[in-house]
């Protein structure tokens, strides 16, 4: 099997080459969000892989699709860990299926055969594809607020006293407390501007590299900051690469990646704020 990393190099999204790791770490700025948001889950990713090869679901090669799936997963895992659980289950299913296909076992009546497993995966994919399409059609229907508006004639003044719901201040306070609780809950999973600013991080990275030496790629990340911190640092590196302030070095494939300032320009003076948000 190809190494996952090598397979990623050939990945394409919407027909455009997406990644060429590790020879060149450049990722188009919107690629990250495409990865984070394009796929609604493992079934969606599988459908995409199948579609990309113009294959009919019924003709898929489990071996190929498993290899590609694992390659994508590797990348997604690196970018957003919380996706991993759902995707891991599928990875396990695929690996199991593949091993059964490769190593026929003595048939046992109560164990599903590789063909059964393959058929059930295909059925799931077909089912998912139908509902994915149904969702697109539902979204396209003319709907209230966006495409259709109902009429509302007013009532003659004073003629009808419409009964209005009563609310007391206490209800309002409770409602607000609910929002605050939710905000608290949500923020734990979010990168907020205040705590982890991308621009601030770009400045820190530049500062870190300002000694002119090469640094280990990994050393730029601080695991204590958690996933959000890693992602922000990663984004900061991409932004800096895009604006030609950094360069990446790698002596040979799979060797540790080194980072240094682009030597020609002592451009640390560039104010990071001038950087247009991509």
């Amino acid at each position, binding site marked *: 099997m190809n190494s996952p990393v090598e397979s990623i190099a050939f990945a394409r999204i919407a027909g455009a080459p997406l990644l060429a790791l590790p020879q060149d770490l450049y990722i188009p700025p919107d690629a990250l969000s495409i990865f984070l948001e394009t796929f609604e889950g493992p079934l969606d990713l599988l459908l995409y892989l199948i579609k990309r090869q113009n294959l009919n679901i019924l003709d898929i090669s489990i071996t190929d699709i498993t290899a590609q799936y694992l390659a994508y997963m590797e990348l997604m895992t690196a970018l957003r860990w919380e996706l991993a659980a759902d995707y891991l289950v599928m990875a396990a299913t695929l690996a199991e299926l593949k091993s059964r296909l490769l190593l026929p076992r003595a048939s046992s009546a109560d164990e599903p055969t590789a063909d059964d497993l393959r058929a059930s995966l295909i059925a799931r994919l077909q089912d998912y594809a139908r*509902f*994915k399409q149904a*969702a*697109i059609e539902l979204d396209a229907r003319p709907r209230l607020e966006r495409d259709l508006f109902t009429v509302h004639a007013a009532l003659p003044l004073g003629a009808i006293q419409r009964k209005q719901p009563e609310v007391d201040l206490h209800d309002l306070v409770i409602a607000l407390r609910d929002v605050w609780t939710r905000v608290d809950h949500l923020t734990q999973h979010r990168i907020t501007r205040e705590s982890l600013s991308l621009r601030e991080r770009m400045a820190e990275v530049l500062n870190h590299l300002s000694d002119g030496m090469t640094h280990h790629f990994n050393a730029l990340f601080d695991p204590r900051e958690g996933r959000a911190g890693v992602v922000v640092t990663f984004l900061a590196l991409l932004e800096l690469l895009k604006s030609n302030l950094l360069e990446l070095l790698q002596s040979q494939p799979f060797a540790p990646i080194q980072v240094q300032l682009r030597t020609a320009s002592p451009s640390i003076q560039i104010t990071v704020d001038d950087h247009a948000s991509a």
Partner: protein
Amino acid sequence: MTTPPLKHIVEAALFASGTALTLEQIRALFADDERPQRDEIRAVIAELAADYQTRSIEIAEIAGGFRIQVRIEMTPWIARLWNERAPRYSRALLETLALIAYRQPLTRSEIEDMRGVTVSTSIMQTLIEREWVRIIGHRDTPGHPALYATTRTFLEYFGLRSLNDLPKLAEPSAPLPLTLTPPL
């Protein structure tokens, strides 16, 4: 004061209500001794629909009832009344909603099985808050998970006469729809 014609009362009720009214809801507006038959109401609604042919509005049969709505050709101007974009909904939310609409009633974990991912709490919360989806009972299995189904508001919002009016699902054997992921 003379009683206005039935047609006027029905029209006024549809104008004032703003949502779809069923024949029974319209009948309930009348005192017992003057209550019209369903067929009479149907007849005046058909007359109104004909009257509106040359106007900016139309009568639509929605969610088992009737409502008056602005013709869709007017949308570009009318949408500016609110000076705000209409809410957009994510694919995850729409897929969840489609599953509930076609497969109801079903539990959250059944939705998750079909989609292959965890359904976020905020999606279920949005669906329930919009009153598109509600809990109609609990499955008689361990944990008694809630069963979700769509509501009349869902039909009204998406302009459906009934659940039978939902677009037919593609055949399982059909080739994969070529629609790629919608642009982000």
